[in-house]
């Protein structure tokens, strides 16, 4: 099962190394990892998307993370009301006539064209994983030349509403 875990960690040198090393040596399967500063310069926030086979595997990931001295707090937020976002940059092959078509296509995703070349345009999109993947699927027929994704970073929502509700729009 795929779980989203956040951890606040001391912003010290080598902390990333400690965490990724831990995942590697314990054979934890990790899909994405993001790290960045928080409102407190001494603390960084990491978001992992991990793939575990069962609850015990998940417990181990959380417990082993907690064991690290530089890890302050670990939380599995998958089942909580969260906002989760990633950013993707997608370089799509275009011939001159297609640019307008692509602009129309990405508009509902609130994606933007951030670079235009003679044979390609680069699109930037932000959103949760399904949205990003939906856009990628739509762009694929044009030919994706290059793509870079940041991986998920996530937050709990201020108001606790269940995240199970079906959302009817892919724009959120």
């Amino acid at each position, binding site marked *: 099962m795929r779980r989203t875990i956040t951890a606040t960690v001391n912003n010290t040198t080598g902390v990333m*190394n400690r965490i990724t090393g831990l995942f590697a040596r314990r054979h934890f399967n990790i899909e994405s990892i993001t790290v960045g500063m928080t409102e407190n310069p001494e603390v960084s926030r990491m978001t992992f998307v991990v793939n575990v086979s069962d609850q015990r595997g998940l417990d181990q990931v959380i417990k082993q993370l907690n064991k*690290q*001295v*530089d890890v302050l707090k670990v939380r599995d937020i998958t089942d909580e009301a969260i906002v989760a976002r990633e950013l993707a940059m997608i370089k799509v092959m275009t011939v001159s006539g297609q640019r307008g078509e692509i602009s129309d296509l990405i508009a509902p995703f609130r994606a933007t064209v951030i670079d235009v070349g003679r044979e390609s345009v680069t699109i930037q999109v932000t959103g949760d994983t399904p949205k990003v993947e939906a856009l990628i699927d739509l762009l694929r027929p044009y030919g994706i030349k290059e793509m870079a994704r940041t991986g998920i970073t996530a937050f709990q929502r201020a108001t606790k509403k269940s995240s199970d509700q079906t959302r009817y729009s892919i724009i959120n």
Partner: protein
Amino acid sequence: MNTRVREVKGRELKDENQEMSGSSMLIQALARENVDTIFGYPGGAILPTYDEIYRTGIRHILSRHEQGAIHAAEGYARVSGKPGVCVVTSGPGATNVVTGIADAMIDSLPLVVVTGQVATSVIGTDAFQEADILGITMPITKHNFQARTVEDLPRIIREAFHIATTGRPGPVVIDLPKDVSIASGMFHYDDEPDLPGYQPTYTPNKLQIRKLAEAVTKAKRPVILSGAGILHAGASPELLEFVEQQQIPVASTLLGLGGFPGTHELALGMAGMHGTYAANMALHEADLLINIGARFDDRVTGNLEHFAPQATVAHIDVDPAEIGKIIETHIPVVGDAKEALRLLNEVNPKPGESVRWRMKVDEWQQEFPLWYKEGSEYIKPQKLTELVYEKTNGEAIITTDVGQHQMWAAQYYKFDHPNAWVTSGGLGTMGFGFPAAIGAQFAEPDRQVVAILGDAGFQMTMQELSILQELNLPVKVLLVNNASLGMVRQWQQLFYEERYSNSLFPIQPDFVKMAEAYDIKGYKITDENEVAGVLEEAFNYNGPVLIDCRVHEEENVYPMIAPGQGHHQMEGVKP
């Protein structure tokens, strides 16, 4: 102890809040942590610290190889319960202690290892004797630090000792660049380290204790698996009280031996691959398994599919990550073993109806005791171990390497007291036992320390005979010499159709001559009738002795759970 080492003299505690060098801070901090002995080896990057050691006269034991120093620190820590301190230089000095750090990590021994490092200005430039010891030791330390400024150093040392000795103990590395040890800064030594990410749980949840108490009352076939956590927590008295109150039989892990008296009628001995039949069958048939401070190592559990199939599993451990790691646990208790047992004794649950279970366990013990064939012309290693037990009245501190001799020592030396058994369990490190005995002797100068070693393992760290000679340490080295890598040979015999690939030593040194080269008394025994006499002579002699005891070369360790088998599938349970 008759040592020629300089006594700890002239070691003055300097006042806090004064300017001093990084190396001076280190020695001052060690004094405040009540460190009385450092094991180490000097070198370029750690020179400033060694100058401080020279000037303050703090006791430093000079090994002849860094691996010897770190294993000695481990032996010291295992016996004293205090952190072992090891100081080495950068690069090769640091990489030479890696095995010992990994060994201490997996066996939860508190160590503080200070490694010299090249100056901060050249770190990352492949400077002379530079190695990324922070990166190398990250996966095998509880935590590690690099002191980048001298101002950070006191805090780092304080935190290192705190982390190494609290919660589940473990090794901590402090990487000390040369310029930081020379630079001068203000020395503060705060008592309370501020580590929000490190808050070990000592007091267990009362609700879980009550659940466990209820399970004890309900159980008809309870068994305790006693691990090294009992020793680290100093929980032996509480365990004894609990066991006698509840009349629950106790199986021990290899490292847990001595946590519960080995001669007690409820002691089943060691469980696992070469454990006793009674211990393994009790685990297999139990309806309640209470694991206290053990980590369900694969050498204990055998095939997990067959492990304790009918048992409700309770697990008391100070490290929450151990609970549920290997075995699904029904009653998890996170906390210190001593505290948990104290609370459990306070609740004092009504013992379950387990009279028939006790009878069954007794029957296993009587029907399937440990056995070996006597009366051949060769010395039986099992007999040898029994004689060591007899001649030391079971009161010696025993250290071993890994392998056959280790299993025989675990089987036949009935440890009645905690912290007298020093062995490399999790990592299974050859060359551990001899230097560990040296460290143990420093922790307990007045006790008999016997290093029971294989001839192969001894040859990995035997250069430390120099320490015995130099300090006239009364360590007794007993080589269980089968001229082979006994356990490897045994597996090749059993599982590789007797293809003894590189496990038999065609040539050996004359160990007696070698001892004599170090001015150490040496004996060689080939006849079983001589064993008792030589042991007695050796144990009565106040100085180092090496005994080369030629044992039966084809002796195997039994009983045995073959790899992939369960506890109920033991082989060699009877002659």
